[in-house]
């Protein structure tokens, strides 16, 4: 039986047929291909590589990019709904798709030459190549402008030196979109697997996003050919990519919240204490209703955000509001769902602790909760608190 989404305000009635079908298709895919295998990968700390070909077959990678590059050519509501359903599976799986689509294919499409597009986009769409995005450094997280990775002009191209950290898919990647300073200004470069001086060791010891590969990227005199430089200067390059990814995360968080809400609702209705289901107790009902309300509000934020994005009227601050709010309510929902599940909530028989632990990363990456607060604070007061 197909998973029933939370749709308390009949929002899905407002979707176009292809948007509905996209959500249903990805939802069915998650039920059949992700949920049965994800716990074992999470426990083992491995990424389910089998999913790459399957997700590519479905057409998830670079979903909004044109069909001439092997992509689906869908709108941003479809993109959001796909991310939502993937994250109902696992934040790590959604992260893989976010990075491939928004942080690798988007900049290659937007800032790459036609040759670069033709070289990479069809392969990335087909899952024959995996990409990663290198912006964050060990000492520069919320303050990426301070980055110390540098590029120096040479005869045939550029010489890269430096290191990146917390890079999703780094070890798996065939191509890395790397941001480095050239004469003090941030530029983007495509660094390819196997280039001399480039390595990407995996970071171990995570208690979160365990079904996702996180890596360091190390550049020691890496020679990058001139044609691998993207055509964009300054921080607006990487920030424009982050806007795409954060948009997808805003939807993804709804998926994680929906996953824990459904688990909590089912559990509350079947768990008997004091001779009746715990769902009959007022305190439990309040918790469930809180989750339902917050999920519904988060859906409305995303729906309007998506329509604005498609209309070209969305601004990045609005994405900050949705990312900040939706991840925050998702993490709270996971916390509350754990309460409702009682001791059972800590077992991997239920998805609750996995989502809860994952969301700790989601809250921090792609702009921390606090940084998004300050982005919005700066927007409404005109005063930047972090410069």
């Amino acid at each position, binding site marked *: 039986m*197909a998973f029933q989404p939370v749709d308390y305000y009949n929002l899905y009635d407002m979707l176009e*047929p292809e948007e509905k079908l996209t959500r249903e298709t990805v939802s069915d895919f998650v039920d059949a291909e992700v949920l049965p295998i994800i716990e074992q990968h999470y426990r083992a700390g491995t990424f389910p590589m089998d999913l790459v070909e399957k997700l590519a077959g479905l057409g998830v990678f670079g979903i909004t990019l044109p069909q001439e590059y092997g992509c689906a050519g869908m709108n941003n509501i479809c993109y959001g709904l*796909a991310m939502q359903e993937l994250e109902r599976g696992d934040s790590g799986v959604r992260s893989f798709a976010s990075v491939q689509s928004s942080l690798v294919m988007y900049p290659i499409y937007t800032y790459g030459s036609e040759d670069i597009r033709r070289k990479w986009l069809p392969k990335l769409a087909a899952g024959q190549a995996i990409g990663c995005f290198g912006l964050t450094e060990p000492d520069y997280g919320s303050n990426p402008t301070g980055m110390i990775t540098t590029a120096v002009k040479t005869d045939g191209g550029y010489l890269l030196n430096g290191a990146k950290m917390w890079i999703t898919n780094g070890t798996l990647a065939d191509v890395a979109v790397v941001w480095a300073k050239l004469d003090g200004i941030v530029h983007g470069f495509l660094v390819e697997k196997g280039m001399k001086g480039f390595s990407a060791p995996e970071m171990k010891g995570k208690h979160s996003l365990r079904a996702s590969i996180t890596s360091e990227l190390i550049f020691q005199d890496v020679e990058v050919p001139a044609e691998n430089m993207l055509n964009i200067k300054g921080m607006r390059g990487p920030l424009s990519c982050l806007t795409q990814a954060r948009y997808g995360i805003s939807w993804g968080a709804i998926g994680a919240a929906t996953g824990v809400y459904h688990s909590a609702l089912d559990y509350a209705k079947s768990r008997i204490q004091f001779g009746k289901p715990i769902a009959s107790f007022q305190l439990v009902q309040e918790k469930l209703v809180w989750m339902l309300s917050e999920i519904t509000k988060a859906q409305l934020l995303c729906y309007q955000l998506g329509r604005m994005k498609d209309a070209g009227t969305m601004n990045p601050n609005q994405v900050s509001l949705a990312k900040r709010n939706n991840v925050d309510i998702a993490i709270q929902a996971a916390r509350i769902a754990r309460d409702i599940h009682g001791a059972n909530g800590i077992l991997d028989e239920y998805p609750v602790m996995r989502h809860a632990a994952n969301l700790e990363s989601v809250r921090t990456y792609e702009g921390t909760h606090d940084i998004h607060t300050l982005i919005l604070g700066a927007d409404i007061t005109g005063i930047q608190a972090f410069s």
Partner: protein
Amino acid sequence: MNIVVCISQVPDTTTKVTVAPDGKKISSAGVKFILNPYDEFALEEGLQLRAKYGGSVTAVTVGGDSAKEILRTALAMGVDKAVLIKDDERADSFGVAHNLAEAAREADIAILGRQSIDFDSYGTAAMTAELLNLPSASMVSKLSIDGTKVVAECDIDGGKETIELSLPCVISVQKGLNEPRYPKLPDIMKAKSKPIEERASAGVAPRVRTLSMELPKSSRIGKVLGDSDADIQELVRLLHEEAKAI
């Protein structure tokens, strides 16, 4: 091979159904509709037959404008052509079969799901075959075709029956026949711009008239017992005397 797959739009299995004020049909307000789950196997089989023997697959449904959604799904899965036979009033199974038979007149094989999960009449496939004067097989869970020879394994009560028939024919299919494919997202977009042919309903007079419709009354009274010896005794007594189950 000219393959016609007949599909139906039904309320989602988890939707809460209510009876309309006239007491003769279900209220469609707030009901989510989906492609009849058994029709997914029919579509998949049609697409696999096309892959093996060439030809084309046409998806046909009888219904109102909202039924276009399932035709879009069929197009996204890969059918060549989609036909909507316009019938806003819900016809009885005979009316549906009449329309489907008209649409499948040139078909080498017409494939239907074993039943529509809304009214569960199980009759449409057999009626369609009868109207076309063609052989038919029901509840098919395995199918092979060699020339015009068709061998179908059908689910029967407690077992399987293997029968032989010949093309052209009508079959209704069962779960287990195949693994329906996911529509690919690029194909969902391509399906958006493909045409859906609309035809008028044959408008045959219904053979069945609905007198009334009502929801089943909940007759189960839940009893929760503890785990003491006395409770277990009570459970045995209730199963024996009230439920008469043992």
